[in-house]
C-alpha cells in the first residue's frame, strides 16, 4: 500500500481534529526530552481509545508503515523519537484509571495514564505506586513500562518491571495479547518481565495492571554537605555496608546543587562540593531505629553541615529540588546530554574521579546527580550546540563515560533505556551471540520492524 492509500485509511479511523498532518502540528512532536535528535513524522494521530490504537497498528502492519507510540515525550534517550517515514500514535487520551482495588492492592490503568495520577488515585486507600522517576508528574505509565523507568527508590523498591503485574498489548502485527495478570506469582515464563523494558519494539501496551504498596508510615530525610564527592561516596558505602537499606540515597555535585537550588530554593548548601540525601522509610519504629544508625554514620563522617527535614513539606521540597536537577541544568547551559550509566557501588568514587578527568580532557563541564544507593550515575554533559564541534565533543565524552561503566562491570543504562541515543554502545555490553538472540526475538515479534523502529539495536 502506498502512503496516500495509507493516509486515506487513517482518515477513516480518525476525524480531522485527531489526525495531525500540518507543519505546525508536527513540529512540536519532532523530539522528546532529548532535543539533540529530531525527526518529523508524516502524521500524528491522537488515539481516543484502545480500539483506535489497535486499528492503527493493524493498518500500519498491512501497509508496512512504522509507528512510534508516544506518551508525554519525556524520554531522555530519544525513546519516542518519531520515524520520518512513519506516524506517531499519541497515547495521552488513554488516561483512564480503570480500577483501584485496595484489598488486592492493584491498579489497572490505561497506558497513557500519568505515573503520579496512579498514586493520587490510590492515596485515599493509604496506598501508592512506588516507582518514581523524576518526571513522575508528567510521564506516562506506558513509557515507564517500555523503558523500565526507575527513580530514586530502586535499591529498596525496584524498577517499573518489579511493579507491573499484567499487560494488555497490541503486538506489531495487530494481535492483542494479555500477559500476566494481577497476582505477584505466576506459572510459566515471565512474559510481563520480558515485555517491560523492550523499548516499544514489541508493540504498544494498552492497559497495565500495577501493584500498589501501603504508603510508608514514616519518613526520615537528612541532607549532609561535603567538601568532596569522595567523602560523600564513602558515607554511602558505610551506610549500605552496615546492612541499612534506605528508601533512597542520592548525591549531587556542586553544579547540580546550584542549578537545583536556583530552580526550587530547597535550602541546599550552595558551597558544598557534594550533597548527600538519605531517606529512611517504613514502619515508624524501624525508621526511628535505623535512622539513628544512619545519623551516627553521618555524624562520624566528613560532613560539614547536616540538616534533617523539618516536616513533610520540607521533605517534599528537598525532593523537588533533586527531581528538578536535570531540567534545572537548562539554567547553566543551552544544551546538555544526560548519561545513565551504572557502576558497582563500591567503585563510585573511582568513577566520579574518572568522569572529572574526562571532563577536563574534553574541556567540557559535567554536572553529576546520581542514585548512589544503586551506583546509577547521571553525568550531565553541558555544551552549547551553536559552538562548532561542541555536540561531537559532548557525545564522545558520553561514550567514554559509558565505556568506563562497562569496564567497571556496570551497565550503560540504569533506567533511561538505550533509545536512539545509546544504540551504538549496546555492543559494549553484549557479545554477538547475545545480540543475535535479542534480534531473533525482535524479528519473531515484529518481522517488518515497524514498532518504534530505530531504537535499541545498533544500526537499526
Amino acid at each position, binding site marked *: 500500500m502506498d502512503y496516500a492509500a495509507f493516509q486515506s485509511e487513517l482518515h477513516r479511523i480518525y476525524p480531522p481534529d485527531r489526525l495531525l498532518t500540518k507543519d505546525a502540528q508536527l*513540529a512540536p512532536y519532532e523530539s522528546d526530552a532529548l*532535543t539533540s535528535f529530531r525527526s518529523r513524522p508524516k502524521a500524528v494521530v491522537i488515539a481516543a481509545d484502545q480500539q483506535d490504537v489497535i486499528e492503527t497498528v493493524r493498518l500500519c502492519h498491512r501497509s508496512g508503515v512504522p509507528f512510534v507510540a508516544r506518551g508525554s515525550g519525556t524520554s531522555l534517550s530519544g525513546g519516542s523519537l518519531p520515524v520520518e517515514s512513519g506516524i506517531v500514535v499519541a497515547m495521552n487520551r488513554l488516561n483512564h484509571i480503570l480500577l483501584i482495588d485496595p484489598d488486592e492492592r492493584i491498579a489497572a490503568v490505561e497506558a497513557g495514564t500519568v505515573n503520579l495520577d496512579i498514586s493520587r488515585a490510590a492515596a485515599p486507600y493509604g496506598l501508592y505506586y512506588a516507582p518514581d522517576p523524576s518526571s513522575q508528574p*508528567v510521564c506516562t505509565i506506558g513509557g515507564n513500562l517500555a523503558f523500565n523507568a526507575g527513580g530514586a527508590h530502586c535499591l529498596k523498591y525496584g524498577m517499573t518491571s518489579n511493579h507491573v503485574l499484567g499487560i494488555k498489548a497490541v503486538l506489531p502485527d495487530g494481535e492483542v495479547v494479555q500477559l500476566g495478570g494481577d497476582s505477584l506469582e505466576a506459572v510459566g515464563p515471565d512474559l510481563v518481565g520480558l515485555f517491560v523494558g523492550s523499548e516499544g519494539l514489541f508493540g504498544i501496551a494498552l492497559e497495565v495492571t500495577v501493584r500498589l504498596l501501603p504508603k510508608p508510615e514514616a519518613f526520615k530525610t537528612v541532607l549532609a554537605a561535603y567538601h568532596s564527592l569522595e567523602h560523600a561516596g564513602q558515607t554511602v558505602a558505610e551506610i549500605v555496608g552496615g546492612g541499612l537499606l534506605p528508601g533512597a540515597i542520592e548525591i549531587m555535585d556542586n553544579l547540580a546543587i546550584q542549578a537545583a537550588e536556583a530552580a526550587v530554593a530547597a535550602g541546599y548548601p550552595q558551597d558544598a562540593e557534594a550533597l548527600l540525601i538519605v531517606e529512611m522509610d517504613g514502619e515508624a519504629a524501624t525508621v526511628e531505629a535505623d535512622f539513628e544508625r544512619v545519623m551516627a554514620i553521618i555524624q562520624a563522617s566528613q560532613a560539614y553541615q547536616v540538616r534533617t527535614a523539618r516536616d513533610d513539606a520540607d521533605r517534599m521540597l528537598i525532593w523537588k529540588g533533586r527531581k528538578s536537577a536535570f531540567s534545572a541544568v537548562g539554567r547553566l547551559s543551552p544544551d546538555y546530554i544526560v548519561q545513565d550509566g551504572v557502576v558497582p557501588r563500591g567503585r563510585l568514587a573511582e568513577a566520579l574521579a574518572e568522569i572529572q578527568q574526562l571532563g577536563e580532557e574534553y574541556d567540557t563541564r559535567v554536572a553529576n546527580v546520581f542514585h548512589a544507593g544503586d551506583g546509577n550515575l547521571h553525568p550531565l554533559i553541558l555544551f552549547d550546540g551553536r559552538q562548532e564541534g561542541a555536540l561531537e565533543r559532548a557525545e564522545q565524552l558520553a561514550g567514554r563515560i559509558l565505556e568506563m561503566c562497562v569496564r567497571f562491570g556496570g551497565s550503560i543504562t540504569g533506567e533511561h533505556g538505550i533509545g536512539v541515543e545509546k544504540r551504538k554502545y549496546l555492543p559494549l555490553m553484549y557479545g554477538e551471540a547475545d545480540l543475535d538472540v535479542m534480534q531473533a526475538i525482535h524479528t519473531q515479534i515484529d518481522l517488518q520492524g515497524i514498532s518504534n523502529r530505530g531504537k535499541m539495536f545498533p544500526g537499526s
Partner: protein
Amino acid sequence: MQHNIPVESLGPMGEAMGQAVSKCVHCGFCLPACPTYNLLGEEMDSPRGRIILMKSVLEGDLELEDALIYIDRCLGCLGCVTACPSGVPYGELLTPFRAMAQEKRQRPFTDRAARSLMLNTIPQPERFRLAARAGKLARPLQGIMPERFRAMMGLLPVSLEARQALPEITPAVGERRARVALLAGCVQQVVSPGINRATLRVLAKNGVEVVIPPGQGCCGALAMHTGELGLARVQGRRNLEAFPADVDAILTNAAGCGSGMKEYKLIFKGTELEEAAHGFAGKVKDVSAFLDELGPVEPHAIEGGLRLAYHDACHLAHAQGVTTAPRRLLSMIPNLELLPIPEGELCCGSAGTYNIEQPELARQLGERKAQHILSTEAQAVATGNIGCMVQLRNHLTVLEQAIPVWHTMEVLDRAYNGRE
C-alpha cells in the same frame, strides 16, 4: 535548546526571546501545569510545544499564520513558569511574539471589531460604564449575536453601582507607616468598586497613606497580552508620567495589572523610557504582598466564622510569585478556615481577554474551576484579581451555587471593620 533565531534583527526584545528558547530543555515538566494541554492533550497546545512553534516561526521554518491558532489559545497564565525547573521566562517570549504577530496577521472582521471594542472600552471606566449600561439593554439580543460578542456580554454585571469618586489622598489612621500610590484599575472601578474602597480602608487601618494619582490610566496589560504593543506603550507611558516617585511602593489590587506593570521593563526595552520603566516596575507590588511585608495589624474575628477557599490568580501566583502572602493575611483572621482548591495551580480561564477570544476553552476551564471550588464545601471564595472574580461568579452561577466571590482585601476589610 539550540536555536537559530536571528535575535539581532528582532529589535530590542529579540535577545530576551532568544534566551527564553535557549533555556528550554523540552523536558515536559510544564505539561501538567498548562490549562490548554490539560484540556486538549496535544503538544501544540502545551508550553514547550508553543516554544517550538514560536522558535520555528522566528527561525523562518514555519508560517506565522499556521502557528497562530495555537499561540492564540495560550492563556498567558504563566503556570508553566512556576512549573519550569529550567527557569524559562515564557512571558518574555510570548509577549514580544504576540506583538510581532499582531502587526502581521489577518483577522476576520468580527474578530477585529470585537477586539477593537474590547481594547477601547475595557480600559476606560467611563466608556466601560456606558457599554455596560448598553450591554444590559442588549442582553435580550444575546442569542443572535456572534459568539465573541456574546462572551463579552456574559462578563457584564447584571446591576451597576452608582459612580463614586475615589479620594486623591487617603490618610493613614494613626501613625503613618508608609506612603503608597494605588492604581485604581479600569474594569474593577465599574464592576466592583467596593474592592478599591475596601483596599483603602485596609491600608489606612494599617497606617498606610494612599495616593491615587489623577493622571493615571489603564495599565496596558490587556493590550500587551493581545499583542497591541503600540497601545500598551501609550498606556504605559501615561502611567510612568502620572505616578509620583516619592512613594514607598506602587500598589495594585488586580493581579493582571500588577504583572502588566512589572512588564514595563520588557516593553520599554531599548526606548528612551527604559530606565524610568525599570524604576517604576521595581516599585510595583500587589497590595497583599506589600501588606504582608509591612506586618499587618491583627484583624478581628468575622461574625459566625468563615470557611474560605483561596483561589490563586495566575498573574499573582505565576507571574509575580505571590502565593503565601495573601494566605498568611487571611489566616490571621482568627475564625477563618482557609481551604485549598484542588488543581489550584491551573487557570480559571479568565486570563484577561481570554474568555472573549476563546470562549469555549474559557468556559471549560471556568466550569472545572467552579467545580473544584465547590468540592471544598467553602462558604465563599477569595482571590486577588477582578478578572478571576467575574469568571468565578459566572461559573458558580451557572452551576447554581453562587457562593460569594470576594477580593482578599474585602475579606480583610470585613475582619477589620465589619460589613461594609
